């Protein structure tokens, strides 16, 4: 987590799946619903959440105005590159994550 000035946007990185990940997504949806700019990046085991129908919380997060990306490297690593993604989830690489991380005013939470 960052300790700089008040956040202008949130960057949430989910690397797990299961119950705690769903709670993380619920928090993300609450932030987005409150009008905050929230980016979610799914990596490692967290990519499972991005497969269509696998997560109840992800569509709610997207519906609340959040933006979600999924790590293309991990998808390929797990032979999921052709799997159907939840509508609204876009595949991207670590470069974009680095760009968002380095943006001033970004508050990062890594789960």
């Amino acid at each position: 987590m960052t300790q700089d000035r008040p956040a202008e946007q949130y960057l949430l990185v989910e690397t797990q799946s299961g119950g705690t990940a769903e709670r993380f997504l619920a928090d993300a949806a609450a932030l987005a619903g409150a009008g905050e700019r929230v980016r979610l990046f799914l990596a490692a085991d967290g990519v499972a959440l991005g497969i269509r129908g696998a997560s109840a919380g992800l569509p709610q997060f997207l519906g609340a105005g959040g933006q979600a990306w999924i790590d293309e490297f991990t998808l390929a690593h797990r032979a999921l590159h052709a799997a159907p993604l939840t509508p609204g989830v876009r595949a991207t690489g670590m470069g974009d994550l680095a760009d968002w991380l380095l943006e001033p005013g970004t508050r990062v939470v890594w789960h």
Partner: protein
Amino acid sequence: MAATVERRTWDVLVVLTAPPHTTDALTTVLRLAQAVLEREHTIRVWACGSNTMLTQASLGETKPADLRDPATPAPTAGALIRGLLTAYKGRFSWIVCTACSAERGARDHIAEVRLRSDARLAATIAAARRTIYIGGA
């Protein structure tokens, strides 16, 4: 007038406590580090817990061969870390927590890493614009 010491500030600090070999955490951190470095920024990793064992010199340069591709050498984590430290000298740093390292009997680390007492963790965080904590308690 007393002299002041200018402290260096790093763009990103990753405190890595997630155990290696059980998840993708280490690989993800190394990929993130490379992406940050390719953008001309600075990053350092504070290796805690069993991550302190990754940079022991005794682990060598390569892992046992992948039997699906035995001709291609598979670098050890230590070799990958050394590669980043060499390629991005001065902009990447790998810090080994001395308490965690001693607790595990991990000695003789590769020369490129820094050893630092956990008493310096707060100062290390203070010297970073952004800190990411990855792992459990």
